[in-house]
């Protein structure tokens, strides 16, 4: 590797602007030195030959980074104009929905793919490019910056000092005593002092220079964590509907865990029950109109023993818990969240077998709407067969009864009723508020006797092994941010050259704070407070 030797004897890598050791400018530079990266040799500013150099130089530019940020920002904003696909009703086709709701703008929004913007390939690409930019920008700067700060010498080239923004020059009278006094004050303010031949370098807060690089590392870890979501098995995201009284396998746990829903509770704010302070608010929206609590009381079970097909699993009770919004049930990295519910789903339906003429009842059957029996024997020669069952009944396009789902929203039955005087049985189609007798006039009918209902709760099952990585990334990012933002790297040089005292000072930011601090240090000493040369220029 080519190298540049400074007159002070220090050997610098090629491309160095200010000698790492003494600070002497090695190239033509403006009157006030640009101290941003200590004038160190950055790869991107030095090499531009190969394709690798060119790619490196492209991504190491902060300008490119800022453009990437701004493009991402604008794209993100576009994505909020209309709701994203995940927030529209799941039953409608997005193509129709956007046009219907938002007119021709909605149509174009959908056509351009903005309805699913955040998972589009180009949005992902933008985020990935920001990631690449973060890595290359940081590497391009942090390595030479570290070298420069590590190699800096106490005694600096005169040019370096007088071309600092804060600088003063005065006759040296009683240098030694004055220097002790100033060094004392600097030490009290937390400066670390290095001395060499009566020259001083006072420095504090150097670690804040690493803040940006630390926070960029945090961001990279965060982005890697986010990327891991695409790796199968890193996370589970399932939904389950569970009825009161039901025991169900928890999806996503591969048959390991089971859940029992003891009870679902839905509460609202009622005027009488709430404290005085809430009365006006409840009055405005109406008593009983505002949700107070969604809660599922559950028992968690674990399967013991091996899985045998067709056999009831053996379960061991682990714990009882009340799952509420903001209070998920957590166990073995799984979390179960309260997300939705349905009140009063039909559970049982009861019918009397009655004589149509006399209205006499010959017994009552109760049908479990989830697992109905095939036959209900009422004794004395009376029995009812269930020929067909439609939990969610409707007439399909051919006019035949059919079911939309397995959920008993609108149950309908085809009964065959047997009686001693009707040994061959009579067929009746019975639905809510409607009875059809397909084979003519029956003697008997199934008359509605009552229903029982229960609540159904919807839970989301989550397990996410990427969370801790995101957490670590976020924490490192915050540490780096605070490190870089809340501290400053300040340096003061005091040097005697030919009976003159030269004082120079530099900070990476917050010049106001540095100046105030220096005023406090230099006010009652023979040294002259450094003057802001940037002021003079303007």
């Amino acid at each position, binding site marked *: 590797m080519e190298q540049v030797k400074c007159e002070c004897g220090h050997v610098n890598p090629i491309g160095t602007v200010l000698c790492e050791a003494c600070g002497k400018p090695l190239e033509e530079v403006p009157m006030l030195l640009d101290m941003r990266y200590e004038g160190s040799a950055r790869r991107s500013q030095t090499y531009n030959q190969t394709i690798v150099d060119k790619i490196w130089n492209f991504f190491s530019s902060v300008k490119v980074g800022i453009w990437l940020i701004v493009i991402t920002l604008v794209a993100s904003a576009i994505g909020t*104009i209309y709701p994203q696909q995940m927030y529209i009703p799941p039953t409608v086709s997005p193509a129709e929905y956007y046009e219907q709701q938002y007119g021709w703008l909605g149509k174009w929004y959908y056509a351009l793919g903005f309805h699913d913007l955040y998972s589009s390939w180009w949005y992902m690409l933008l985020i990935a490019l920001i990631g690449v930019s973060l890595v290359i920008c940081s590497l391009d700067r942090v390595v030479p910056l570290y070298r420069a700060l590590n190699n800096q010498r106490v005694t600096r080239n005169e040019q370096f000092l007088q071309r600092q923004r804060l600088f003063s020059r005065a006759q040296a009278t009683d240098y030694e005593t004055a220097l002790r006094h100033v060094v004392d004050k600097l030490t009290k303010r937390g400066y670390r002092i290095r001395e060499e031949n009566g020259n001083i370098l006072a420095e504090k807060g150097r670690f804040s220079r690493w803040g940006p690089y630390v926070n960029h590392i945090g961001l990279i870890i965060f982005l890697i964590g986010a990327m891991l979501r695409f790796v199968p098995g890193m996370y589970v995201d399932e939904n389950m509907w569970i009825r009161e009284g039901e025991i169900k396998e928890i999806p996503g746990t591969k048959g390991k865990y089971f859940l029992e829903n003891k009870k679902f509770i839905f509460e609202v704010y009622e005027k009488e029950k709430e404290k005085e302070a809430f009365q006006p*608010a409840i009055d405005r929206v109406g008593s009983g109109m505002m949700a107070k609590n969604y809660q599922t009381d559950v028992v968690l079970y674990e399967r013991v023993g091996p899985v045998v097909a067709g056999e009831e699993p053996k379960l061991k009770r682990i714990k009882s818990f009340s799952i509420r919004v903001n209070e998920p049930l957590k166990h073995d990295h799984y979390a179960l969240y309260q997300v939705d519910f349905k009140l009063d789903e039909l559970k049982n339906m009861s019918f009397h077998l009655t004589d149509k003429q006399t209205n006499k009842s010959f017994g009552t059957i109760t049908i479990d709407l989830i697992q109905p029996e095939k036959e209900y024997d009422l004794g004395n020669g009376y029995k009812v067969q269930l020929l067909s069952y439609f939990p969610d009944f409707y007439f399909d396009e051919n006019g035949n009864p059919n079911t939309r789902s397995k959920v008993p929203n609108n149950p309908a039955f085809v009964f065959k009723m047997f009686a001693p005087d009707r040994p061959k049985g009579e067929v009746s189609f019975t639905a809510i508020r409607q009875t059809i007798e397909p084979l003519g006039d029956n003697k008997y009918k199934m008359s509605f006797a009552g229903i029982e209902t229960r609540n159904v709760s919807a839970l989301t099952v989550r397990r996410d092994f990427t969370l801790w990585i995101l957490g670590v990334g976020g924490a490192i990012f915050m540490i780096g941010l605070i490190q870089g933002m809340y501290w400053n790297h300040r340096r003061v040089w005091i040097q005697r050259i030919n009976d003159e005292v030269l004082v120079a000072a530099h900070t990476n930011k917050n010049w*106001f704070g540095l100046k105030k601090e220096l005023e406090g240090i230099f006010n009652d000493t023979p040294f002259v407070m450094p003057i802001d040369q940037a002021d003079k220029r303007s």
Partner: protein
Amino acid sequence: MVQLSSTLLYIAFVLYLIATLFFGGAIRIKKKEGLDRWATLGIVVTIIGFIAQLGYFITRWIAAGHAPVSNLFEFTTFFGMMLVGAFIVIYFIYKTSLLGLFTLPIAILVIAYASMFPREISPLIPALQSDWLHIHVTTAAAGEAILAISFAAGLIYLIRVVDQSKSSKRTFWLEFVLFFLISTLGFVIVTTSFRVAGYEATFEWIDKNGKQDEMVYHMPALVGPHEGVLKTEGRMTPLIDMPAIINARKLNTVIWSLLSGFALYGLLRLVLRKRIAAALQPLVRNVNLDLVDEIGYRSVAIGFPVFTLGALIFAMIWAQIAWTRFWGWDPKEVWALITWLFYAAFLHLRLSKGWHGERSAWLAVIGFAIIMFNLVAVNLVIAGLHSYAGS
């Protein structure tokens, strides 16, 4: 307790007004040696006002049993309080009374704007019943408030440096910013006037699903709802009906605010006979530009980490607990990300590209516009999970 709380907020509001006048006085008086009496009075009154508002916050917290940051009124008021708090801190670092003259009116506007929304103490819906409500919302508001200080500083900078001797893009956009502040005042005045007058007009209208519904206006309807029929007698009939996908009542409020903004702005121009920024310029003539630039930068440097912590990190933790996922591209989340990206760009432009001074000041103004958009528009216009906050 509830009554006491409202009274304290009212006292704080009045004190902020008085403090603004004192800070104004501090500019007029030529600086003499020693203490600047007016500025001292100003900051003392500001602090008393801040304590009164803190009293409002605490008493309301006690009355409700939860931190009063759960709806648009409470959140925006808290944001106003944080703005004053951030100003007090920055004042003690930099001792510039001019910053008070610009920050306090913004805080006053913010609090006045907040009180246009329902002010009852409301119980919490299940999603909000968490300690993270206090942690996330207060930190996010504090971060935004500190960032907003850079807007005040930026405004001072721009009023000072934009050349008012000739009309230019810069004078136009500066007037545009001031016009928006004036329109907020217009919104407050119009809303309050019609509220005091008890104006109410009920419409029957057809929503986008073809269903008939009722809509109550509290301002005369310039634009009516889709196929709206006025049901209240003696009220103004709308000039034009809106299509069903537009919320006509909100649009009507926006139109009234802008109209009153234009009226106020026009009146001011007539009285002053020059641009508002030109009229304000003498106030800032003696300001140290480098110092104002530094204040703007400092407030971004301090506010950015606080904002990141509150509006992104705490937000993600809570979202994971309440909504089962730490990030869901809800509009409010996205706009928090946009705000964050914007200030990240601001910092990179400043640190690496040397965007100081006027450029930095313009950026601070845009940043504040984004924060306000997230506060106002995302709650009221773009529907999302956070929109309950608007109620």
